């Protein structure tokens, strides 16, 4: 594929058709088209409406606990400086964590859910549906549905229901109905199919609260805008705390909402290196990974064109990741565009590397990170020792890892 010409700004997309270059768009059944156009109309009304913004900011502050801290990870930094010294380099950049794990519900997902529930309320919708992988978005959806008095149905792959049982229980406590989906491998892709089938059936009163920056336009744009609070805060915080921009920012990419949220405000800061981490699973040689941008090809699924794991016949493959939140064969369309334009690097991190980073962070920082976020930390562990001491890296700690302790215990052969 030809590399597109470098634009003046990387922050102007999507265009009116919802395209980021060749990616994005509105590839949905006709039944859903009027709904998506209606959503777009409402979104355009509210996105610059001061009243809407004020309501969202109020909730973000007093309900979700924003702004999240930008934390200097001194323990990890010290550890990686020792690694650097042992290599004879004597370097090691300063590592900061953007603490999205400290938000209400324990991840960045609440940012998007608060925004969309206010949108659903404005649109007069009566019922919320959502899909979830790790259960973080399901929990955040169930939370805002409880807070605003909406009935909520969460579609979740049967495999994920089994490996994320604490989150399933939380959703049920919050009053949501969790519907396990057995199709395919029973993961996020299958949950999204089922949510779309629900939406196409219940068009009158239902709001589909998509959890990641993917799907038909305008979802990739609106989810990104709600998540961009991460990067806007981080940018202001690092300027305040260090007096300059970071050298490198890193985030894990499944569908890619925490990553686009961190990246977007930095896209035009050319001196900032931006790295997205894909789930490398058991390695990119086989099919047991979810590295759609490193090992997939552009295709059309779930309403948008983007990089997908697929076979030569255009059938979508089931990926694999230790992390349910990264276990998706596609990625948000803006990431695909940022990949092709060369602005953002996307690299894979293996299951085992993420697990090591999970253990390391727990030990040296006293923070149990989500396995998704552990992928991003794992890459920092790789590159930080080779950087200079006066350099700065920000890692998006997108969620906390309490939900993953069962998975990690079984990986380590322990019983709890």
């Amino acid at each position, binding site marked *: 594929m030809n590399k597109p010409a470098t634009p003046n700004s990387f922050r102007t997309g999507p265009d009116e058709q919802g395209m980021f270059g060749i990616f994005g768009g509105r590839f949905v059944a006709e*039944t859903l*088209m009027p709904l998506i156009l209606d959503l777009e109309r409402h979104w355009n009304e509210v996105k610059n409406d001061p009243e809407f913004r004020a309501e969202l900011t109020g909730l973000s502050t007093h309900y979700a606990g924003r702004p999240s801290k930008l934390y200097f990870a001194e323990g990890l930094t010290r550890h990686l400086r020792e690694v650097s010294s042992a290599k004879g380099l004597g370097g090691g950049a300063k590592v900061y964590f953007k603490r999205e794990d400290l938000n209400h519900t324990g991840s960045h997902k609440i940012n998007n859910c608060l925004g969309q529930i206010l949108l659903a309320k404005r649109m007069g919708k009566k019922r919320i549906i959502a899909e979830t992988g790790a259960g973080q978005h399901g929990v955040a959806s169930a939370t805002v549905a409880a807070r605003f008095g909406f009935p909520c149905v969460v579609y979740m792959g049967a495999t994920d229901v089994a490996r994320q049982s604490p989150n399933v229980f939380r959703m049920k406590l919050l009053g949501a109905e969790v519907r396990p989906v057995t199709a395919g491998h029973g993961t996020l892709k299958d949950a999204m199919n089922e949510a779309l089938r629900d939406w*196409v059936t219940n068009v009158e009163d239902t709001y589909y609260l998509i959890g990641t920056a993917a799907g038909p336009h305008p979802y990739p744009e609106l989810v990104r805008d709600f998540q961009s609070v991460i990067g806007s805060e981080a940018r202001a915080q690092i300027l305040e705390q260090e007096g300059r921009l970071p050298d490198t920012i890193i985030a894990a990419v499944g569908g890619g909402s925490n990553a686009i949220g961190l990246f977007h405000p930095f896209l035009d800061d050319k001196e900032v290196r931006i790295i997205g981490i894909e789930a490398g699973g058991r390695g990119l040689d086989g099919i047991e990974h979810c590295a759609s941008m490193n090992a997939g090809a552009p*295709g*059309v699924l779930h309403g948008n*064109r983007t990089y997908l794991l697929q076979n030569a016949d*255009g*059938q*979508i493959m089931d990926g694999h990741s230790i992390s349910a939140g990264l276990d998706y064969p596609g990625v948000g369309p803006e990431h695909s565009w940022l990949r092709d334009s060369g602005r953002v690097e996307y690299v894979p991190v293996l299951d085992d590397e993420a697990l090591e980073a999970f253990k390391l962070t727990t030990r040296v920082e006293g923070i149990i990170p989500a396995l998704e976020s552990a992928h991003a930390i794992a890459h920092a562990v790789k590159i930080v020792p080779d950087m200079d001491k006066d350099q700065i890296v920000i890692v998006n700690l997108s969620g906390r890892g309490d939900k993953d302790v069962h998975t990690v215990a079984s990986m380590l052969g322990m019983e709890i």
Partner: protein
Amino acid sequence: MATRIDRRMAKLRNEGRPALVTYFMGGDPDYETSLSIMKALPTAGADIIELGMPFSDPMADGPAIQAAGLRALKGGQTLVKTLKMAAEFRAGDNETPIVLMGYYNPIYIYGVDRFLRDALASGIDGLIVVDLPPEMDEELCIPALKAGINFIRLATPTTDDKRLPKVLQNTSGFVYYVSMTGITGSALADTGKVAAAVKRIKGHTDLPVCVGFGVKTAEQARVIGANADGVVVGTAIVNAVANVLGPKGEKTADPAEAVATLVSGLAQGVRSARLAAAE
């Protein structure tokens, strides 16, 4: 240029009855069986054939067609084989229109230009691609029309009068009215509402309007056919195949015969319907 679909629809109009449009899944449960089903359809009374292209993630389909697609993929069906199946059928039947129905990604990966060339060579007359609304016409609809292949669009209960012209703009062959909001295989909608919707669409177009989603029996075909130019049956046919497959996918009876029996009944249904007052 009149296509096989145009000619078939004109002929039925002269006969004063609606078309029976039959959907089946290409490659379900395997290539040879599926081809035998396809060949049995016209004799049993099908007027137009919708040949399903299996896709791993059929977002607008209910459990029956999802399962059929998975059986076909498991049986080794690919888009290449679906086109080959159409070509083999066409070698023995040059009249019955074939419409390919499915999702965009396999076509996109095959390559749009190559696909249209091979589809024409295989005797394909029309396309229904569920996830390509008019907003995405540049992808496949416009190239297909230029190539002389009908692009059949779905109109739904959510397609209001303001939107209908956009939906109909590049539609050709016929309009496929989806009788209710939902996935394939759901319960049939109120027939009075369906008749009103068909009338509404006909106010915007001269194209024939066929109605689908939820039609399973000869009686339903007759009632729906009274007010439409055609009746589409899909899930019931796919179920007829599934019903003669054992737990391990082994055939317990001839699927082609099971489908033929069902379609013969449906054909009697549409033949006893009177063509709509829209004439």
